[in-house]
């Protein structure tokens, strides 16, 4: 098997060995990296996280499980929500998110629905798999229960998260997530400054990002 590009690279790099080690340099030989950030107390990490969300024009708050009912009602009124779609995870089921939405007469669309139907949705509710306080970042996997479009197509994205998923730095997230087929970091609502540098939110992705930390 000859690959002309690899051959050219090998020629340019002055390799003389006859592909004795097809794998090239072992991965472990790369230069050392720096010390990851160390975590602070959970309370302080939550504060840092919410503070960053705010700087990114997101809306973050701490909530007790009992407070979800009222918070959702407020969100529905403020944002004129009529339709919603929800990740099918044990955490969100346990919090009774679907039932609460039903009680407010919100039309629920299956998270696995056709993309055209999903695109009509006002609100997408997910949780997150990891949180990075330093940057105000949500990290989300994808699966049949956690479809990618829920955090992307609706005009509003709400993530209801638990403090247990806080990680001090990207290193820990990557150590746990590197073998998954998909991961996305979400750091604030969709934004652009492409026209005269005017910052505009929600150009393609959600215009508003809500993050509720359940404590």
């Amino acid at each position: 098997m000859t690959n002309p590009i690899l051959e050219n690279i090998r020629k340019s790099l002055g390799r003389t060995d006859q592909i004795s080690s097809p794998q090239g340099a072992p991965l472990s030989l790369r230069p050392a990296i720096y010390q990851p950030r160390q975590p602070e107390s959970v309370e302080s990490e939550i504060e840092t996280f919410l503070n960053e969300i705010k700087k990114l024009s997101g809306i973050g708050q701490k909530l007790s499980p009992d407070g979800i009912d009222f918070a959702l009602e407020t969100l529905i009124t403020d944002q004129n929500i009529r339709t919603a779609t929800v990740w099918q995870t044990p955490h969100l089921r346990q919090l009774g998110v679907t039932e609460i939405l039903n009680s407010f007469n919100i039309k629920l669309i299956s998270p696995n629905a056709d993309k055209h139907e999903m695109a009509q949705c006002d609100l997408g509710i997910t949780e997150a798999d990891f949180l990075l306080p330093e940057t105000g970042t949500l990290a989300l996997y994808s699966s049949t229960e956690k479809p990618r479009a829920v955090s992307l197509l609706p005009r509003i994205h709400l993530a209801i998260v638990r403090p247990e998923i806080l990680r001090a730095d990207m290193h820990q997230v990557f150590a746990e997530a590197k073998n998954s087929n998909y991961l996305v970091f979400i750091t604030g609502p969709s934004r652009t400054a492409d026209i005269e540098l005017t910052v505009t939110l929600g150009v393609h992705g959600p215009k508003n990002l809500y993050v509720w930390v359940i404590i």
Partner: protein
Amino acid sequence: MNETSPYIGFEEYSEHVPTSIPLAVQQATGRFVSGRAARVAELPQWEELRQIGSDIRQHTIENMDGYLTHLEAAVLSAGGHVHWAESGEDARQIVLQIAKENKVKSVVKSKSMATEEIHLNRALEAAGIESLETDLGEYIIQLAGTGPSHIIVPAVHLTKEEIAVLFSKHLGIDAPNDPIELARIARETLREKFLSAEMGISGGNFLIAETGTLVMVTNEGNGRMCTTMPDIHVAVVGIDKVIPDWDSLTVFLKLLARSATGQKLSTYTQFITGPRHAEGEGGPKEFHLVLLDNGRSKILKDPVGRDVLKCIRCGACANVCPVYKNVGGFAYGSFISGPIGAILSPQMLGTQAARELPFASTLCGACADVCPVKIPIPTILRHLRRRVSQGDEFSKPTLSTSIRVTASLASFALAQNWLYRFGTRVLPTFMSIFKRGNWISNAPYPLSRWTKARPLPSFTASFRNWWKKEKDSTK
């Protein structure tokens, strides 16, 4: 093997820069520069990070064969397809073939320097496939029919009024002069396209050899749309984008957005390893990675010039470059502008770009100070100038004979100090013909190119005589 793009000529362009361009560009760069400075100030280990970033990129370049081999195996085992493209033409044919096999009629594209480099849109359109740029800035310049003028904000040279006119003309609506409204119109127009396109084409910021993962960094969400909605995802990525592993990635993610836009992280960072596992999760059923060489493997041969391949495309060098800020991106005549363009295009495009661009710098060094992976841009500029002026093992000199003869004469005069001293005695007399007061306002060619913009001080050259009289005689 690599292609030659139409190149206007830096000097020619620089003499007719539209006045609106420096103003618009300086507004953008000014914001990015202060944003970057604020982020850097927050991070005490910034310099350490830069050094590590530089070391890892250097190491990766020197072991590119190994890492690409790893990468290919990992993408295949994740269920993706890998295509190797030696040239831009190869890459275009690969993409067209995938489109044909899947009966693709329309394509949505997320911003990608690699596809700009190979002019993919033109090829798709020639094959009767609609290809739409979906990054707002790229969408605007696609409507305008031009290339990008800045790596991060490609349409920065256009005003909201000009954009409104473009939207009105192409979308058949009456678009207002309001950036927020214009963005809303683009959202609605493009959303339809995201949902109906059969194929999404993206570039990539990094390729992780360890797991075969494509990393994409975007802000608007169009990158997620292009890689989530259509059934086929094709990523066209330069072979230089490979990095060893996820731990390396932490370094580059910390460097990239801070250097580019002054964000800690861009809004969306996607980590894509092969196609979707289940239909229900969404995302493409096929994932194709097109690895683009287009001259890169040849650049690797030059131990000085190849440092350009360390670049992570943040644009920080352009943002601080006083030359770029006064001419804008079009002057560089290629998909990549600013100082990094001045060292990449000559090595990729050859011919006129090579003769001109390495000289389009004052060697002020501001670029090297901010480069997150410490590319020694001034050193490479000098190195490429040497290739033009005197030739090296990769190329014969291409500079005009008259300039080379002039340089030889200058060299001779400066090395023979009697001749230099003779010149020092006659120059003031000769130049006094042109003197007005203490200034020379109309010097003969080539100094006329100097005095066109500002006068030259008059030649005095009397220190040597003074020293002789005052010092040597008293000893």
